[in-house]
């Protein structure tokens, strides 16, 4: 093996390790801080549905941050994102910004719902009206933003997005369809509304990884 190849693969391993460590640290610290904040407010354990919503929002928020960083500061982004070099980020700046804003809006929607609810419940920082305002504004912005930018990206990214949509449908039917059927037959308790909303976005995220993974976009570059 030549030195250049050895250095190249060593560099890739270091980069993947950095991405994993950064992701784990940010996710862990963020989740710990969120739970500490909520449980500190009420003094009791937070509802698992809110934990799922906050966890999913956190992942989308982190993705928004790192993708946005790649668009606005390519030299920094090239160290944390799976790209060949910073030029690739510069070439993809518009698509990255569209993605970052989309992820941010999903994070805002889920955060608004996770923090909302009737007063007194653990994790409730917003009243129902305020939460509805945050979630409604994020949903509206998400719908308009997605529609305006529906043709952005090249053909492979559009194919991956369509693929992710259909995989999400299968996953939602599989997870929530079976769960609801089992609840109808009284084998299990029915899921909470927030579990469904957060779960759909979590499954969408999984579907996106499957769709882009099939096209080799998760291979270290």
């Amino acid at each position, binding site marked *: 093996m030549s030195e250049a190849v050895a250095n190249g693969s060593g560099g890739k391993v270091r980069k993947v390790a950095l991405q994993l460590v950064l992701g784990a640290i940010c996710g862990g610290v963020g989740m710990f801080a969120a739970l500490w904040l909520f449980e500190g407010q009420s003094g009791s354990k937070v509802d698992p549905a809110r934990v799922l919503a906050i966890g999913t929002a956190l992942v989308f928020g982190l993705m928004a941050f790192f993708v946005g960083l790649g668009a606005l500061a390519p030299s920094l982004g090239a160290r944390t994102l799976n790209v*060949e070099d910073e*030029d*690739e980020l510069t*070439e*993809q700046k518009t*698509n990255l910004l569209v993605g970052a804003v989309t992820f941010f809006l999903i994070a805002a929607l889920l955060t608004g719902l996770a923090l909302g609810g009737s007063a007194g419940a653990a994790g409730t920082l917003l009243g129902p009206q305020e939460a509805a305002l945050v979630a409604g504004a994020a949903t509206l912005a998400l719908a308009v933003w997605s529609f305006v930018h529906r043709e952005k*990206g*090249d*053909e*492979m*990214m559009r*194919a991956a997005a369509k693929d992710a949509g259909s995989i999400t449908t299968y996953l939602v039917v599989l997870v929530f369809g079976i769960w609801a059927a089992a609840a109808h037959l009284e084998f299990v308790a029915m899921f909470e509304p927030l579990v469904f909303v957060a779960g759909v976005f979590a499954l969408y995220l999984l579907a996106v990884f499957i769709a882009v993974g*099939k*096209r*080799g*976009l998760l291979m270290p*570059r």
Partner: protein
Amino acid sequence: MENRVKEWREHAGWSQGELARRLGVSRQTVNAVETDKYDPSLPLALRMAKLFGQPVDQLFLDHWEPEA
């Protein structure tokens, strides 16, 4: 689909980025086509063939044969 895009790209002396720029797609798309992870649309396959000055069946290899 098995293809010779990488071979023709290297023959032309282009990087993946250069080919992507000429085709109006992302580098990731060129990489995915070359590594057989993504089959391009017919318009993109035709553009590649035009760019390399080759017929499409010299770029993309189909081993299917019609039944006699």
